[in-house]
């Protein structure tokens, strides 16, 4: 810069705002959402990638979507048909289980994929930067088409088996959103913990297996004794699964239970976010 010229402007670079400022600190709530929004093209590609890879080199392709809850439905019906079939119910037991399994299959797949998303992609994380939250986010979102197809199947079966269309079906998207949110929170929590604690990857299958039995997926909530009912109530999935079935029967969701689920989901999301942002800094160092 020409310092002899009295009219010269102050050096431009000193007033310019940097594009990035890299510091050791990061705000506890900073999931880099603005950056994710700016790079939504990448998010979209990550979603497409995960959907495509799921069906690449498979013979049955998209039929897996239908088969996945169908196979356990047959097994559970085989075992529990006699116990849980109530003649006065509107649903037969297989249908009852299938409705629960559609929600459950999405949740457990999304949590597993998102939970492994960071630890399984180390080859990427050490080589290129992008907002890390994109990985669990994209995997949770990538399950949605399957989820929607599963619900669609359910509705088709209902219409064809002569059950009429209920206006309460309109609540289904809301319930789906709630499961997606919950899966995102839980999956992200697992993902961030698994960066440092590889134990998490082993724990996850057990956790999900136990959660399946602590959620009224294969049994009605009434099958649990009063004494232990509080466990079901603490489980945020309970209200979603029950309301999902209620809505299919033409009843409105149980709002008090849904309210509790939303509250618990907010709490889990908060912890999940704080831990993710804290762990995120260490990703590349713990690969």
């Amino acid at each position: 810069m020409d310092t002899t010229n009295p009219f010269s402007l102050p050096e431009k670079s000193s007033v310019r705002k940097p594009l990035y400022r890299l510091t050791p600190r990061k705000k506890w709530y900073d999931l880099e959402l603005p950056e994710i929004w700016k790079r939504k093209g990448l998010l979209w590609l990550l979603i497409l990638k995960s959907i495509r890879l799921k069906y690449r080199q498979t013979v049955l392709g998209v039929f897996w979507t239908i088969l996945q809850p169908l196979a356990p439905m047959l097994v559970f019906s085989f075992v529990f048909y006699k116990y849980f079939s109530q003649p006065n119910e509107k649903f037969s037991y297989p249908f009852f289980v299938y409705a629960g399994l559609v929600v459950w299959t999405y949740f457990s797949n999304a949590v597993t994929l998102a939970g492994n998303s960071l630890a399984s992609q180390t080859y990427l994380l050490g080589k290129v930067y992008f907002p890390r939250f994109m990985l669990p986010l994209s995997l949770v979102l990538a399950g949605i088409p399957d989820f929607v197809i599963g619900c669609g199947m359910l509705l088709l079966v209902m219409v064809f088996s002569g059950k009429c269309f209920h206006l309460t079906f309109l609540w289904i998207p809301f319930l789906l959103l709630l499961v997606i949110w919950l899966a995102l929170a839980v999956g992200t929590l697992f993902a961030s913990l698994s960066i440092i604690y590889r134990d998490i990857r082993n724990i996850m299958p057990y956790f999900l297996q136990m959660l399946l039995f602590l959620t009224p997926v294969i049994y009605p909530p009434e099958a649990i004794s009063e004494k232990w009912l509080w466990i079901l109530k603490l489980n945020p999935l309970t209200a979603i699964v029950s309301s999902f079935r209620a809505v299919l029967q033409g009843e409105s969701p149980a709002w008090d239970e849904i309210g509790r689920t939303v509250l618990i989901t907010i709490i889990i999301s908060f912890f999940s976010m704080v831990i993710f942002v804290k762990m995120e800094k260490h990703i590349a160092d713990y690969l």
Partner: protein
Amino acid sequence: MLILKVENLSKIYRYETPGFVTVTVREAITNKIGKILGHKNKLGNQQFYALRDINFAVDQGESVGIIGANGSGKSTLLKILSRITFPSKGEVLIFGKIGALIEVGGGFNQDLTGRENIYLVGSMLGMSMKEIRCKFDEIVSFAGIEQFLDTQVKHFSSGMQVRLSFSIAANYEPEILLLDEVLAVGDAEFQTRCLEKITELKHKGTTLLFVSHELEKLRQLCERTIWLEKGILKMDGKTHQVEKEYLKTIV
């Protein structure tokens, strides 16, 4: 015009290499209890400075080489600049679009096709879909993989992967390009083409940060060189001067 500023930058790793062994739950708990009881923090003593108090600034259009023995912190520096890892102390200010080619072949998903990977890796680097579509043919022809666009990358030869990943990064045309040893791979013909491409980017005003052990290439590309030794900035100056001092320590 200033484009990159590194201020008092340090990166601290825990000591137990390799892989910086994870803190187990037990370790974390005993450490916490020890702290409460007033014992000295055992983990704290095992710190290792990969970088210590690094300061330098780069102007737009400059080409800066980075040399140093293995373990001197060159790659750590590039990883911090490319936002892969966080600094432990200090601050980095970046005034332009930054693109990094840290490791060739890095970022490819082996199950996706060449075409899909160009989009995926391109957008990870920071290109928009539109930019990729614009540059697509150029990327493909520079890498010379026209016939294999719809083949899964796992069937590519390693040379093809190298060419493709360089081609994507070079066509990203960032304002600051970070290159880590990339030119050490690929055959002689491709290396020459890479050098040409880099020189072309230089003429367009791209700022270049180039890590290499090959002093000859450094001399060719960079007027200025930074010498790191054990995480400390040992020297920063004209390439031929730094090189002279550097060679003295080797011999």
